[in-house]
């Protein structure tokens, strides 16, 4: 099933990305004589940009693969990816925007007035970003291997190089328009083949899906392999619902909103756009069960989206659809990876590298060079890791990144926005407890797992115990150290919660 068409499509997507990156600065400017300042980014366009960056390999390939492989239970994944924005909307969207923070460490510093918390947050942002990049690069390797037969390391390397060139050259930084187009590109790439495939399915006499085992379509069947389906379901849902707000590339986009009200409107649009996208991905899993009940040996379930067209319609139509899907998948790898690399590199540059670099070079290095070095670091480390560790499945690894975010930033953000009693010591305790427990669980699962029994379930699904643990640590330590409530707490909270409309203009 190897063919030139999908490879050509992937090459086209990569070249297009590089081209838009090179010319991107022109797109990002509005040239006009007057009244340009009124043209802020509208909530809808910003929502497209957020969705474009957010829909990663996990959404494009991983969800269908999981549902195909394990069962309908896995539909909780797309539900969770979307519900994350509902939680974000209700609890933190507007206050985060009003805080004026550009990155998560910025928010930590603004709220808690402490450099220690800022540094802790920076470390966590880098850890979460790397963990999130890992499956993107693995997925790219998988996809390219599937369509071209190239070794698995090639796809990851292609994404790495394109992203580094693009980001370091200054394009693709946070060009809202480009990322917004990415969403529509991905939606087209997933929906048009889906419609065609459904038509093919009708034409073929509507073959019924063949479950691999009787529990495939049952609730609890998909998570049942561990023997603790209920716990796994809840833990996954909790991780995805609370993790979204702690992802490094999400807050950065909220900064583009002019005020808190627009931040809320943006979030509502994001929920609609994501919901629309996730209507299509499970289709591939179910059609896959109908057309391709048994994967060829050596194929990962994650490739089902790419395998399906040729299985359903061998010939030119299948080739074209496979090419469109491969292109869409690569667009997903590239846009998510760019967004993450920009956020992670920004944090590495600002909080971890700049001062050291200045000391070594005696202030010779310009800030641009620092950012370039940071970009290299931000993507080379996860690429090396993607070569060393064995793939766990794209959506599963992404789920782990969400779990770490849920156990660290979710308590910090929610308590930071809503609780006056939060102290610096309490926040630090929460970050350390949540961060250490979640990264240990995730690290063990990725490096040495999966394990059997309750221990294995708890390590593979850490959110349901790490998050309450982190919240408890934050609250108890805060209550025990009332002297360390930051001096500006009341002022900060007033600023976070006052709607712009009541301020005098």
């Amino acid at each position, binding site marked *: 099933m190897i063919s030139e068409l999908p490879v050509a499509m992937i090459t086209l997507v990569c070249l297009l990305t590089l081209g838009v990156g090179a010319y991107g*600065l022109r797109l*990002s*400017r*509005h*040239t*006009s*004589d*007057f*009244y*340009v*300042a*009124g*043209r*802020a*980014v509208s909530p809808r366009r910003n929502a497209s940009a957020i969705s474009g960056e957010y829909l990663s390999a996990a959404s494009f390939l991983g969800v269908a693969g999981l549902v195909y492989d394990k069962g309908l239970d896995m539909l909780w994944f797309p539900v969770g990816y979307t519900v994350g924005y509902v939680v974000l909307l209700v609890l933190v969207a507007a206050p985060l925007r009003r805080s*004026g*923070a*550009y*990155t998560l460490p*910025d928010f930590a*510093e*603004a709220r808690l*007035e402490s450099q220690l918390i800022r540094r802790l947050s920076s470390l966590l942002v880098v850890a979460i970003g790397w963990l999130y990049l890992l499956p993107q690069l693995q997925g790219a390797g998988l996809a390219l291997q599937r369509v071209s037969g190239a070794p698995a390391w090639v796809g990851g390397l292609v994404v790495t190089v394109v992203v580094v060139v693009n980001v370091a050259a*200054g394009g693709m*930084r*946070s*060009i*809202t328009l480009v990322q917004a187009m990415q969403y529509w590109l991905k939606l087209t790439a997933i929906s048009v083949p889906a419609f065609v495939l459904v038509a093919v399915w009708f034409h073929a006499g509507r073959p019924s899906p063949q479950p691999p085992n009787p529990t495939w379509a049952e609730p609890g069947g998909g998570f049942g392999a561990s023997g603790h389906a209920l716990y796994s379901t809840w833990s996954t849902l909790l991780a995805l619902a609370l993790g979204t707000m702690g992802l490094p590339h999400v807050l950065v986009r909220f*900064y*583009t*909103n*002019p*005020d808190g009200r627009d931040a809320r409107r943006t979030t509502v649009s994001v929920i609609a756009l994501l919901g629309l996208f996730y209507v299509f991905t499970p289709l591939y899993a179910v059609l896959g069960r109908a057309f391709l009940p048994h994967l060829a040996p*050596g194929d990962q379930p994650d490739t089902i989206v790419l395998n399906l067209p040729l299985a359903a319609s061998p010939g030119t139509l299948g080739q074209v659809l496979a090419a469109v899907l491969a292109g869409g998948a690569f667009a997903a790898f590239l846009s998510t990876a760019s967004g993450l690399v*920009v956020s992670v*590199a*920004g944090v590495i*540059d*600002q909080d971890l590298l700049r001062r050291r670099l200045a000391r070594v070079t005696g202030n010779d290095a310009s*800030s641009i060079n620092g*950012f370039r070095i940071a970009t290299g670091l931000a993507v080379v480390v996860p690429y090396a890791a993607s070569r*060393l*560790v*064995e793939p766990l499945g794209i959506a599963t690894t992404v789920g782990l990144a969400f779990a770490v975010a849920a156990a660290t930033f979710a308590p910090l953000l929610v308590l930071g926005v809503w609780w006056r009693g939060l102290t610096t010591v309490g926040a630090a305790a929460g970050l350390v407890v949540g961060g250490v427990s979640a990264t240990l669980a995730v*690290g063990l699962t990725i*490096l*040495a797992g999966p394990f059997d029994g309750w221990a294995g379930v708890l390590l593979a699904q850490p959110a349901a115990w790490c998050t309450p643990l982190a919240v408890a640590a934050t609250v108890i330590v805060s209550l025990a150290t009332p*002297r360390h409530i930051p*001096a500006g707490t009341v002022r900060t909270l007033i*600023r976070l919660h006052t709607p*712009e409309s009541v*301020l*005098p*203009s």
Partner: protein
Amino acid sequence: MSGHRLRRMVRGVHLQTALVVSAVWSTVLLLWFLRRRQRTRGMVTEADRATYETLHTASLAAVEFRDGLTEHGSERAGRHLRTVLGSSAVAVCDRIGVLAWEGAGADHHVRQARAHADTCLESGRTVVLGQRDLTCPEPDCPVRAAVVSPLLTGDVVVGTLTAYGPQISPGLVRATEELAGWVSAQLDVAEAGRERTRAMEAELRALRAQISPHFVYNSLAAIASFVRTDPERARELLLEFADFTRYALRRGGAFTTLADELRNVERYLVLEQARFGERLGVSLLIAPEVLPISLPYLAIQPLVENAVRHGLAAKVGPGHVTITARDRGSEAEIVVEDDGVGAVPEVIQRALDNAPGGDDPSASVGLGNVDARLRQVYGDDHGLVVETAPGEGMRVSFRVPKYSPNVHASP
């Protein structure tokens, strides 16, 4: 080799690698910790150690007075002050009441502390209070005598530092006096900081006043020329003028958003175009992502005014001003360029160096002021960068971080 065995091996290798890596890391951390400990705890005598500890405690207290004599700061500093003095209790009062009480007897002596400070506040001299002045019904209470020393800012008594104990030794009197003197020095530093902020604010007000006279005169004259020929345009220009003055003369916080600042620049340029007509061309290239950034109020308009007044007004033939705002990751870069007559770099250098009180009125009134304010808010590496030569036009640029603590736009 079967896939299963390969899996096994890969996993085995990584568990070992992980163990080795973590072992190496823990050793490195342990060595670093020990070295640091050795460096700090090395060979010191008892006397040295006492000195270091006193100095350390004092520096902890010093931080709390950086905002001046406040209740919050005094409360947090109280513990350290008591450690330095070694007294049973310490109180800090200002002219109105008790700011902090640290130590024994907090429940029943706090209310008297302000009364104890009376004599000292009036005389400005250290006062010792004995058993007669301090009656206490509780037999176990160690608060029996006190030393009250004045806290001064400049020559003004702003508060008192009181040390309480069972009895007062001459040593404690001396220590309290010295400590009060040291706290006064911290308060002076805080006052100097506030003074600097006030000076900056005064400068900002001065800048508001400065942009007005020439511009107001020229704009009104230009508008007047349209009143008969094009009343509709005259009306629009007058409204722009009204909005411009409201923004430029507003009483508000020191920060605004880039969107508001640019809107004001646009109004300014509309009014200048009314005067220069076809001679003044303008382009704005703005990345929409950077519009919500907070930055010091009136940071761009003076640069544009400088480009128009000093760059283009003197030029023969049409000129062009370009304003660019680019997204640079965690910062935004703002550039104001003109193709006017330019300037001798040394003149600009002098204008920037002499700020705020630059006495060269001809060039760049606003440049020095904007530069000084940017440096004050964001640090020395965020000042103006000016590139110019005679006849070559001028390019003024600066970078604004998207987030900076304490920078919040107020409408």
